[in-house]
């Protein structure tokens, strides 16, 4: 018998199409890498250990969907059944087909439609311990596994709540077509194999044989005809799915593999829309995990979530409003199962929007020789709005007997991040250069700042040859070295992670450690990398103050759930934002530490001692 039938053509042509299309994209992405990135990528070939760890991640993320499992077991099972199930079906099908054809290389359609081609080979049912029997069992089992995932996928469209998702992403036309075809593939395969097995009375497994026998009895028309139609349907759904794949969300399947290799080669996102960014955009599966966690929902904005933003980038058109409507809090980046650098993509697109009017910061240049000091304290613009933090910090520094220079005591220059986050890099760089010059002239070896916004940009953009610390880290060092004596009052406190300090620079532990020394730190439902934005973000321009207030109030509701006495934070902007709406005092960790330093001349015992001696004198 010739192993060919006309119905394999839709599948076969679709397969060729998708291989060419994906191959072309891969080729373009790799070709468009910068020379340095190309060298990095080539090191993967020379270092098989690195390549192996990339392969391991491909297995764990693209097939097993480990991050999805962590998010929600049902969601994880659903994704794994499709990805790993289909992958194993292909691999096992290939091995099985070799057994029947007797050669190692078969036409690509032969294993896919194997049951049609081998129906004339009589194999006894339940012969599980022979090789063909084992494979028949295995293939039916894998098919059943995928179908169980399909049932979950259908249920998810209706009851996404059970999958831990309140909202799911809206689909485009191509997505719908591709998804429908994907969902049809496996039921059609089941029916095709069952009807064939039923018609010939053999060749099926534990699932397809009984089902086939049962269905064939019910049929009023010849079962051979129905089986043949099912094979055509199966092939067509595969073919259409393959053709739609490069134009739909399913492009993420081949792209994510390349992205994982890029990442393991050490390739980083650039400041411009690079080949790496394009790979990231195409790797977005539009799973919609980023929708629920986005605080824009709280403000009543439902069209600017990262999944829709990336969809726009992919379609080569993002309305400016969507690009701008983002707090740049980084929550979606933390939760993204693909690990897309969502914030950096946003900023790239903001940069492309045009950097706007040129600036003139010539007024900042001064001829004054700045003082020099080993330790320089830079409070930052926002901290100037919360003078209590400056008082606390200078108090702590003086208490520890450290000589320091308060760099922006009178002349506060913005660090540049507010401009940068609005996409005005050129203007921001002017400020950065001026600040770098000033910092350089102080000959400092340690730069301490109270503002996480400044801290982040100092670290990421300034390339300073000195140590940079946020004051939480600096205070922790002082406590550890015993430079400041502490007498904590141990009030009940919750800590709010500022976006730029937490997710921005991964500083989660230092502030907590400091707080645990002077307060009774209570847990919060959403903290560390899942902490909420306070709503004061400088990353967004086009929301009203009312919308900001909604975000702030929601964050406060979650923070104050455990009834703390004080809300602690480590960012002047968060403090200022919360203070407007909070029912309890909002304090920076520097203030809490400063409060806990015993001050001899003003302490209660000293006062009573003074009063006593005064009374003695009188008597």
């Amino acid at each position: 018998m010739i192993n060919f039938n006309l119905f394999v053509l839709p599948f076969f042509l679709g397969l060729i199409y998708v291989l060419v299309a994906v191959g072309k994209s891969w080729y373009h992405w790799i070709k468009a890498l910068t020379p340095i990135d190309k060298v990095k990528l080539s090191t993967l070939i020379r270092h098989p250990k690195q390549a192996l760890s990339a392969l391991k991640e491909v297995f764990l993320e693209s097939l097993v969907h480990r991050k999805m499992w962590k998010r929600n077991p049902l969601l994880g099972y659903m994704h794994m059944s499709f990805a790993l199930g289909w992958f194993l079906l292909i691999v096992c099908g290939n091995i099985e087909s070799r057994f029947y054809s007797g050669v190692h290389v078969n036409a690509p359609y032969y294993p896919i439609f194997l049951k049609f081609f081998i129906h004339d080979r009589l194999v006894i049912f339940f012969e599980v311990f022979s090789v063909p029997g084992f494979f028949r069992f295995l293939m039916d089992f894998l098919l059943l596994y995928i179908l169980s995932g399909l049932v979950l996928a259908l249920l998810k469209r209706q009851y996404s709540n059970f999958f831990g998702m309140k909202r799911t992403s809206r689909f485009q036309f191509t997505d719908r077509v591709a998804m429908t075809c994907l969902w049809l593939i496996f039921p059609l395969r089941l029916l095709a194999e069952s009807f064939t097995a039923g018609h010939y009375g053999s060749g099926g497994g534990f699932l397809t044989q009984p089902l086939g026998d049962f269905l064939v009895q019910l049929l009023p028309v010849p079962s051979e005809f129905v089986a043949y139609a099912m094979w055509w349907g199966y092939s067509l759904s595969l073919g259409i799915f393959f053709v739609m794949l490069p134009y739909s969300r399913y492009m993420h399947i081949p792209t994510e593999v390349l992205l994982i290799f890029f990442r393991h080669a050490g390739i980083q996102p650039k400041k411009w829309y690079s080949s790496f960014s394009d790979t990231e955009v195409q790797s977005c599966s539009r799973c919609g995990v980023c929708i629920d966690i986005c605080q824009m929902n709280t403000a009543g904005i439902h069209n600017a979530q990262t999944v829709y933003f990336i969809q726009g980038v992919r379609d080569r058109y993002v309305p400016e409003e969507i690009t701008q409507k983002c707090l740049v809090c980084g929550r979606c980046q933390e939760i993204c199962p693909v690990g897309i650098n969502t914030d950096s993509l946003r900023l790239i697109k903001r940069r492309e929007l045009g950097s706007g009017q040129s600036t003139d910061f010539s007024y900042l240049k001064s001829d004054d020789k700045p003082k020099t000091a080993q330790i320089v304290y830079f409070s930052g613009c926002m901290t100037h709005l919360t003078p209590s933090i400056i008082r606390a910090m200078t108090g702590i520094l003086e208490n520890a007997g450290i000589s320091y220079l308060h760099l922006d005591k009178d002349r506060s220059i913005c660090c540049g991040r507010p401009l940068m986050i609005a996409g005005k890099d050129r203007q921001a760089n002017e400020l950065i250069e001026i600040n770098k010059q000033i910092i350089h002239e102080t000959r400092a070896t340690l730069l301490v700042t109270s503002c996480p916004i400044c801290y982040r940009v100092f670290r990421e953009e300034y390339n300073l040859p000195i140590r940079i610390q946020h004051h939480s880290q600096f205070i922790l060092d002082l406590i550890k070295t015993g430079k400041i004596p502490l007498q904590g009052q141990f009030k009940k406190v919750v800590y709010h992670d500022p976006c730029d300090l937490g997710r921005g620079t991964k500083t989660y532990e230092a502030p907590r450690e400091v707080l645990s020394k002077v307060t009774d730190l209570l847990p919060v439902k959403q903290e560390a990398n899942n902490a909420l934005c306070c709503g004061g973000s400088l990353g967004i321009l086009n929301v009203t103050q009312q919308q900001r207030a909604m975000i702030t109030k929601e964050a406060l509701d979650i923070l104050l759930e455990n009834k703390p006495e004080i809300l602690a934070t480590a960012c002047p902007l968060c403090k200022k934002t919360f203070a407007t709406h909070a029912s309890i005092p909002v304090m920076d960790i520097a203030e809490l530490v400063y409060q806990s330093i015993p001050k001899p001349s003003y302490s209660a015992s000293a006062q009573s001692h003074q009063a006593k001696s005064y009374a003695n004198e009188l008597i």
Partner: protein
Amino acid sequence: MKNFGYTIQRDQSIDIDQNDRRIVNYLLSLEPSFNLCLGCGSCTGTCTAGHFVDFNIRRVHTLLRRGESKQLKTEMKKCMFCGKCQLVCPRGVNLRNLIITIQRAIEQIG
């Protein structure tokens, strides 16, 4: 001495009908919170740039309202965009968006 914009202005007559109110109309359509401003000057008082140089958002507001866009061009180049003004505004004017919109309007009008 710091200039908060409270000093006595020079005599000048302004013909609102003659002046170019394109920018202010553009602003009002894009950032309606501009209407909330009561001219208290908090923004100017806290301004990071205003600390160094004669930059006065309150005056920018008046110039815009009067439609005097000539002076604006050099004036708006001084903003560092730090956002302190927005945080102290008692009326909830969306100042950062306002400033970026003014800059864009100036760029477009030329």
